[in-house]
């Protein structure tokens, strides 16, 4: 039975709109919908270039609508959080009066039976507009545009940029080897997998040998020591970004396990300030107590499970000039 982990990535991107889409968005704040002249056609929304030839279009804007005709539509019965409306609605191609091409937008029609090709619709504007396509909440049946809430007027400055909050939730299958490594970590065991072909040992539930391109099953499992030596490290000055968890310089160390060829990469260090980390430092594994257990595991993350990181054990440093080369 494959287990899945659900993850969400969210980021507030910024879009530079350029001169044409920027003009379109600025007009939306004024409750105007602009098209652009492209030879005999009026393209809505406006494009910067002729979609057929790639030729630059002169910035000849044409106001269209506000009402238009539904050319085609599809019903969204169960909207997701990312849809424009929180109840069922239609996505429709609406050819606004004066436009040659249809605009894709939502129509709030109540039921699919209320939708039809040739249906006349007009925009329902948001009272407070910021120069985004959802300044038009949706289109509604009829010829007259309406505004929801208090109208706060158009933008004082031209709109040149747009916030775009992107979010994606995805499910990753957890390989059996990763689950077995995590389970072993609960018993404070550090599990490795020895490749039967090349003899290399992989830790962290990596159930394959990338050198020989073979899977490593439970029959390859070996217990690894809990003591090792820091071979190399990174001291990272955190750059701030949405979702950053760090504010102070932090260390990620590479730990060579005693008597093995195994590197535990990008390891968290404990009670070891950034200015004291060095090549050759002896360290012991630190395991979470049951009280410190979290669903996400310890400080190392992923299938390292209860392994929180590594702490200096007080033994004398190892002086070996080749240690620093052991990053992988």
């Amino acid at each position: 039975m494959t287990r899945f982990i659900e993850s969400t990535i969210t980021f507030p991107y910024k879009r530079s709109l350029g001169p044409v889409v920027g003009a379109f968005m600025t007009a939306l704040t004024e409750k105007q919908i602009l098209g652009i002249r492209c030879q005999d056609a009026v393209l809505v929304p406006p494009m910067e270039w002729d979609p057929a030839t790639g030729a630059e279009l002169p910035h000849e804007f044409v106001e269209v609508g506000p009402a238009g005709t539904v050319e085609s539509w599809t019903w969204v019965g169960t909207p997701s959080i990312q849809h424009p409306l929180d109840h069922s609605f239609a996505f429709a191609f609406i050819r606004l009066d004066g436009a040659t091409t249809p605009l894709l937008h939502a129509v709030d029609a109540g039921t699919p039976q209320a939708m039809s090709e040739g249906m006349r619709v007009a925009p329902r504007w948001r009272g407070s507009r910021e120069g985004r396509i959802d300044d038009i909440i949706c289109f509604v049946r009829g010829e007259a545009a309406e505004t929801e809430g208090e109208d706060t007027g158009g933008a004082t400055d031209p709109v040149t940029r747009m916030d775009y909050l992107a979010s994606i939730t995805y499910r990753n299958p957890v390989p059996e080897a990763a689950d077995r490594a995590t389970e072993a970590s609960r018993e404070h065991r550090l599990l490795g997998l020895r490749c039967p072909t090349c003899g290399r040992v992989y830790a962290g539930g990596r159930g394959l040998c990338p050198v020989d391109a073979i899977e490593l099953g439970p029959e390859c499992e070996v217990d690894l020591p809990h003591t090792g030596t820091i071979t190399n490290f990174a001291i990272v000055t955190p750059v701030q970004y949405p979702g950053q968890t760090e504010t102070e310089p932090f260390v990620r160390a590479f730990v060579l396990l005693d008597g093995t060829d195994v590197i535990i990469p990008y390891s968290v260090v404990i009670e070891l300030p950034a200015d004291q980390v060095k090549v050759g430092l002896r360290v012991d594994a630190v395991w979470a107590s049951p009280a410190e257990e979290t669903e996400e595991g310890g400080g190392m993350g992923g299938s390292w499970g209860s392994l929180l990181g590594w702490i200096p054990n007080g033994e004398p440093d190892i002086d070996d000039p080749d240690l620093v080369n052991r990053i992988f």
Partner: protein
Amino acid sequence: MSTPPVAVVGVGQTHHKSRRLDVSFGGLVREAVFRALDDAQMSLDDIDAVVLGKAPDLFEGVMKPELYLSDALGAVGKPMFRVHTAGSVGGTTAIVAASHVQAGKHRTVLAVAFEKQSEGNAQFALGSGKGASLGAGGAFAPFIRAYIQRSGAPEHIGWKVAVKDRLNALKNPYAHLKIEDISIEKVKASPMMWEPTRFLESCPSSDGACAVVITDEAGAKAAAADGRPPAWILASSSRSEPSSFPGRDPVRPAAALQCAADVYTGAGITDPRRQIDTAELYVPFSWLEPIWLEAFGLAEVGEGWKLVDDGTTELGGSLPVNASGGVLSSNPIGASGLLRFAEAANQVRGAAGEHQVDGAKVAIGMAYGANNQYFSTWAVGSSLQPFG
């Protein structure tokens, strides 16, 4: 295996900046594309296929921008391809474009690469959207530490590369960073970011694009006859290796050595240090210059830093490296690799302007990506038989 001769006949790039808030993605790439077309004296109608490269979609949060950009690039009704090889992508994009021409499938292919870093955040994207991102600087710092220890290089080598590339950038009108008063003292005094890498030893975050027009032998000869020298592609190669396994050496990655050997064999280069006149190497952090000089056979093992120290890699030296200012001066990530390839081409075309290396006949452009895992390189020449 010999392939039909093909060449670069047009090169274009944007003025790289921190933020190009005045243009959309399409507007940005078109600046580079039309400069390349003008350079080739061509129009979009002359292009048979378009190959686009950029960093992973998480950088700007646009899925499959190659599809969204097809009309901006005049690719409607034509083949359009996207290349994904992390930081090396710009180089691989050029190689894929050249391969289409070499294969005889298309006569003239446009290679385009871009990044608009101002729309997202590179550290976020490199950290797969999680906190505590190492970023590229954090990922490469251990490799640099290993290089310094095994070569015994003095610490000022990193500072010298940082100064050299910024001085070169002052001669390149398209370069992003223009630090008029750059000096060893200034680099040394800049904040430590990822020990031993300081702020001024690191690449900037740029918005920018690059485009290259590659055409067949007849097209290249016609350009030459018209007084517009082409850059003949003598050989190209891409190689990759797994991200990690016990014993992997990121300072001399097997993929880099294989990529170099493949290009040199294909181009008939037997003594890279003597036969290559200038190199555009992907150096986002200063110490990568000596590391790649060695991995790409331009210096003996352990001696790359000496070519920095004695001025060999300066613009007036016998092997100028990154005469354009390199990635240290402009880093629109997806485009950075293609910029290396394009600048190498311009050098052998004699079209590099103020940062031209006198008499350059053979140049290499090199890009790498991910955890020192993906490598792309081409060798270009002012003629098909540059070694006589």
